[in-house]
């Protein structure tokens, strides 16, 4: 299946500064991909290149199967985008702004524009404020209007750059619902965010950018599972459990109500076997699920994995 968007060796240099380098991104069709990264990691630059707003210094971009830049006119009518905040005329009302956007949409027939505008306003919860000037909108309402513009025509691919910026909790929930609707309808969604909980709640796939390059990407569950190298064992006999594992060269440490065994060098059955052999009562065993937050921290912060090791070493030293 053709990916909704694919880049190969994407590189962008702004006046000698490398903004993005070696970006090989693949947004699978039908997925909701979260693009994560600290500020300045190249998320927006990458999105701008996907949309043909910026020409890459090197590398290739394919959008809905069309090679850019030549394929832009074919691809873009089916792509909705909210990039770098909502851009509208302050002196026009929300509805008039969308009517203007509608006039520029090749996919909309002229007679269909007013209805499409009303529907989009309804969808983002702006119907009540549609006829107020954009200037008078709150930050959240501006953001909603930007979202409405991205949803104006039928889309196969929707790109949302920081869609929840400035939104209150209700607004965030609405955006989440819109993304879920799009996903259910088979639309591919690429959403950039620095709100990890947001991405964890809405996305099927993630790509993590750091210092202008993709440091991890793929199916969200697979990524999180691959990252969780710990086994949580509940037992009342913590000391004996830790000792038994350490005797078998399996790093472990005490946590509330049990122990956490490190699985980097061993497997879960081996840990359980060791404990049972040593006569440790095992009440419950489960894989520690790392949150996206941990994964993100490990990928984007300097010397990240060291913390667990250091902790284990400290416990070892204390004994």
């Amino acid at each position, binding site marked *: 299946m053709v990916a909704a968007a694919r880049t190969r060796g994407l590189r962008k240099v702004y006046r000698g500064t490398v903004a993005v380098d070696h970006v090989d991104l693949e947004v699978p069709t039908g997925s909701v991909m979260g693009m994560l990264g600290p500020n300045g990691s190249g998320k927006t630059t990458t999105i701008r290149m996907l949309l043909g707003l910026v020409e890459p210094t090197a590398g290739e971009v394919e959008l809905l199967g069309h090679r850019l830049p030549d394929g832009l006119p074919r691809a*873009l*009518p089916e792509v909705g985008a909210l990039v770098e905040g909502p851009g509208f005329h302050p002196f026009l009302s929300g509805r008039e702004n969308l009517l203007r956007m509608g006039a520029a949409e090749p*996919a909309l027939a002229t007679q269909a524009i007013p209805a499409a505008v009303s529907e989009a306003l309804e969808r983002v919860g702006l119907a009540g404020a549609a006829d107020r000037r954009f200037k008078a909108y709150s930050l959240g309402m501006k953001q909603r209007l930007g979202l409405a513009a991205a949803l104006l025509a039928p889309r196969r691919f929707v790109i949302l750059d920081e869609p929840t910026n400035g939104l209150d909790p209700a607004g965030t929930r609405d955006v989440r619902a819109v993304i879920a609707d799009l996903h259910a309808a088979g639309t591919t969604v690429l959403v950039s965010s620095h709100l990890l909980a947001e991405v964890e709640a809405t996305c099927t796939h993630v790509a993590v950018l750091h210092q202008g390059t993709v440091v991890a990407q793929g199916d969200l569950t697979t990524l999180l599972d691959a990252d969780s190298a710990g086994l949580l064992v509940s037992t009342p006999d913590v000391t004996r459990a830790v000792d038994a594992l350490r005797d078998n060269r399996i790093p472990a440490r005490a946590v509330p109500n049990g122990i956490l065994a490190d699985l980097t060098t061993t497997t879960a059955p081996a840990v359980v076997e060791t404990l049972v052999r040593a006569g440790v009562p095992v009440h419950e065993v489960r894989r520690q699920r790392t949150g996206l937050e941990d994964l993100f921290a490990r990928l984007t912060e300097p010397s990240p994995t060291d913390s667990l090791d250091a902790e284990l070493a400290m416990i070892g030293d204390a004994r």
Partner: protein
Amino acid sequence: MTTMAIPLPRTKAPIARLLRSELRMMLRRPRTLVGLGLLAAVPVIAGIAIRIAADGDGPVGEGLSTLVAGNGLMLPIFSLLAALTMLLPLVGATLAADALAGESTNGTLRSLLVAPVSRPRLLAIKAFGIATVTLLACLLMAATGTITGIILLGGDGMLTVSATRLPFADGLGRVLLTALLVAVQIWGVAAVGLAVSAWTDHPLIVLSVALGLLIVSGVLSAIPALDWLDPVLITSGWESIGEVARDPLPWPTLTEGVLRAGCYILIGYSVALSRMLTRDG
């Protein structure tokens, strides 16, 4: 077996729809409306002033203005020429500044590009909008000038500089011609503005460059030693538009000005286009 043509999805929105939308947006912008309103008021104010002066004892003024008293159809021509020196170029430059630099700053240019509207098309739409609104400004001045002139200053037909009297319809034709000639000159200024507008995100830079160009051009043309520069200066020949008040019309003088403005339009538009194709959206 019948072959079925699969209709290709549309890749462009209809151009008429885009042009209409552009004009509607421009004419909703408060700045445009205030500008048009003030320009429309210029002939009215000039008409009242000349009427008061004519009723008094003192001289009415010099140049064309002496001819305006009691010669109502000359009022719009006089007003358009007066506005051509600064007011109308200011309007043209402001529109050019808003068209690309302004829209780029508030993010609306980006929205159009991803709709998508291709870059050459977007520039053409912007140029069309500027040209139409500046023409509208000139025609509006011609209209309020004609009406004010007839009411306040009266006159039978139009008394030309050559001391002939033209019938009313011909006089009206001269007014219309002036509006068109002035509009073409403003298009020249706006084209330069559009070129700068394509290069920057700051509308003020566009205004400064366009108006600076007029001032420099005026200064250079005032230096006799630099007379050889005159044929390429943008303001050369602006005064000669006043020749429309001659009978018969001195066509060579008038066409020369149009050709010069045409060159500026061509150069400005080409520079804008070359930048538009590569600029970051």
